[in-house]
């Protein structure tokens, strides 16, 4: 039996999405730009998907641009807003798909508190007259911590600076209303919500000035050329329509409390209240999480720690380090992220496996003594 507890990395394609995807691959072959009926069918399905995604974002369908995924959405939002000049304000806990874009620009990285939450006043303080964009993630991929997006949006609006939100982890896990939040740009990735890899969306508020970063045909309001990935987009629309809330938190809490109760020297990283309902990030003092992740995998449980470098080896999480955790504690932390397929039985079995692995690893570790 394998149990998958790494839904923040990616999700399996759901049965309902798979069905619409396969049907679309087989039947919706037209080019959505074509005049004929085959093309028109594709165009209709494309626009239906746009309405489905817009419905979940709380925006007008015309404000949704389809593209290849979260990374492209972030690149378009950031480079498209500030281009070669202009200053960007972001946080130190962003995903590499934002950090490594900002690294090519004049950027101020606002630190976060020990709870993993950025202070909107600190964003305010980082603004300069030439600031062209604020970019803050909605929820962090490693800790699940939710950022005060509405407050930061007020800061941005008062300063007249456009505000981009990387919503890749939040969209699908918590209700999102871009109008109520007051953001200008919002990135979405399909494979985090049971759609396939290679499709995503960017909300572009009507009137936002954005320059395309790819050049070609006149697709997607001339912001994103290239023949649309119609089956992928149909799948994303289906996945958006399928979003359900309120099912995950109990399971997550059962897992978290179970581990904290049964394994000493553990604790939760990041704010436990302002957090995605499916994520818990737990440190295990006394051993590196790398061995635990492998040991759990060999027992049939997929979990993760840190971020993978190009060889596949794991590096200490920059998010946990930015929250002020020691290097040792950052290296001893594991992320459990739940999803639709997880059951109470799986959670209980995972708890047993974690307790067993922790006892085994601590027995080997010469340095750890339970205080």
């Amino acid at each position, binding site marked *: 039996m394998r149990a998958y507890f790494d839904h923040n990395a990616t999700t399996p394609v759901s049965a309902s999405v798979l069905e619409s995807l396969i049907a679309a691959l087989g039947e919706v072959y037209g080019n959505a730009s074509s005049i004929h009926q085959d093309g028109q069918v594709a165009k209709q399905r494309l626009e239906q998907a746009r309405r489905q995604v817009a419905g979940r974002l709380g925006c007008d369908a015309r404000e949704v641009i389809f593209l290849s995924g979260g990374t492209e959405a972030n690149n378009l939002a950031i480079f498209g807003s500030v281009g070669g000049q202009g200053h960007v304000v972001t946080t130190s806990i962003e995903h590499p798909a934002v950090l490594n874009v900002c690294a090519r620009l004049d950027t101020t990285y606002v630190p976060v508190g020990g709870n993993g939450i950025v202070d909107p006043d600190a964003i305010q303080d980082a603004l300069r007259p030439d600031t062209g964009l604020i970019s803050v993630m909605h929820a962090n991929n490693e800790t699940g911590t939710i950022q005060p997006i509405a407050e930061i949006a007020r800061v941005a609006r008062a300063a007249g600076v456009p505000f981009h939100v990387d919503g890749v982890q939040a969209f699908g896990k918590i209700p999102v209303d871009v109008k109520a939040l007051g953001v200008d740009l919002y990135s979405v990735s399909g494979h985090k919500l049971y759609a396939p890899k290679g499709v995503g969306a960017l909300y572009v508020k009507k009137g936002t000035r954005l320059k395309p970063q790819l050049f070609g045909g006149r697709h997607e309001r001339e912001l994103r050329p290239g023949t649309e990935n119609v089956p992928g987009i149909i799948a994303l629309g289906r996945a958006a329509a399928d979003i359900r809330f309120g099912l995950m938190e109990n399971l997550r809490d059962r897992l978290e409390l179970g581990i904290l109760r049964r394994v000493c020297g553990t604790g939760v990283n990041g704010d436990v209240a302002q957090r995605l309902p499916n994520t818990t990030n737990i440190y295990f003092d006394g*051993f*590196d999480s*790398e*061995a*635990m992740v*492998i*040991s759990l*995998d*060999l027992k049939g449980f997929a979990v993760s720690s840190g971020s993978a*470098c*190009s*060889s*596949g*080896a*794991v*590096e200490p999480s920059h998010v946990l380090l930015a929250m002020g955790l020691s290097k040792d504690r950052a290296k001893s932390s594991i992320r459990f992220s739940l999803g639709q397929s997880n059951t109470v039985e799986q959670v209980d079995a995972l708890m047993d496996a974690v307790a067993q692995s922790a006892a*085994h*690893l601590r027995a*080997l*570790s010469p340095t750890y003594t339970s205080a």
Partner: protein
Amino acid sequence: MSGGVDSSAVAGLLHRQGVKIVGLTMQLWNQRRLPEVAGEGGGAGRCCSLDDVYDARYVAQLLGIPYYVVNFEQRFEENVVKPFIDEYLAGRTPIPCTLCNNFIKFDQFLEMAEGVGAEKIATGHYARISFNDQTGRYEMRRSVDSGKDQTYFLFGLKQAQMAHTLFPLGEYTKPQVREMARELGIPVADKPDSQEICFVPNGDYAAFIDAYFKEQGIPPRQMRGEIVDREGQVLGEHDGVHHFTVGQRKGLRVTAREPLYVIETKPAEHQVIVGRSEDLLRATLVAADMNWISIAGVVAPMRAQVKIRHRHVAAQATLYPTADPARVEVRFDEPQRAVTPGQGAVMYSGDLVLGGGWIE
């Protein structure tokens, strides 16, 4: 699993024997660091290069075994790279492979393997381990393939480490291993052997040390010094004692009537002392931090063969215990050339590895 033929063959061999195995590759060093010394292709084809990881992963996939890359970069830097540099700067010639074996592979890596649930680790080293019921000790022997024997680098292994280690290749010759790899359908069967120091491209360790200091923002110290003969007469200048090792002839840039060799380096005085070939001969040495493997130690003088560097043919000698049990005096029957501080002195009785220590 390094992605090379030896560890791949080990995986294939054990898998064929029905042993339940997990493949692990240690990420030891980021080859994109130190661009000055990365060489052509940014270090491709070197140890820990992405290509090697791909090869190892592919072998694991062919065998259908679980496979992981584990990050030992920080531990490698602390336990191997930094001591390696410190040793050179202290005028000694270190053996990083032995440091890696002692502090990484058979220590922290073994611990990680046990942590993920393994009972033993198996590596592609050419050496043999067996248990002697009479003495109650694990013994180490040279590999069947004398040309590939790696026991010189393994003298630091403790009994508890040997109890959890398998060297399946010790019974085979390299051509047999390549043939075995080919039979098992392992795609790296014809891959060339790796070079001596995995993290130093082209073997230019002095350039590596200079680049490392630059990366760390350590200002280039006052490295320059004098090249002198045994009488203290100045013959020339040099760019730092870490460019020289005992027995070295090249790179001295000193003209003399007869060939000159480095016979000693004095880092405190920034001096490199040179002399004639016969000045390199030594009849004795002291090995410190002794680790005994196949025997518990020496209490009386004992005959042995002693190897003082990897490419040295073990020379007949007598081992004399000293007042300090961690130190042994080695008296060679014939004086040996270039006894180099920092290298290992490994003691054999025929094929049997008695133990080894560090040349003072």
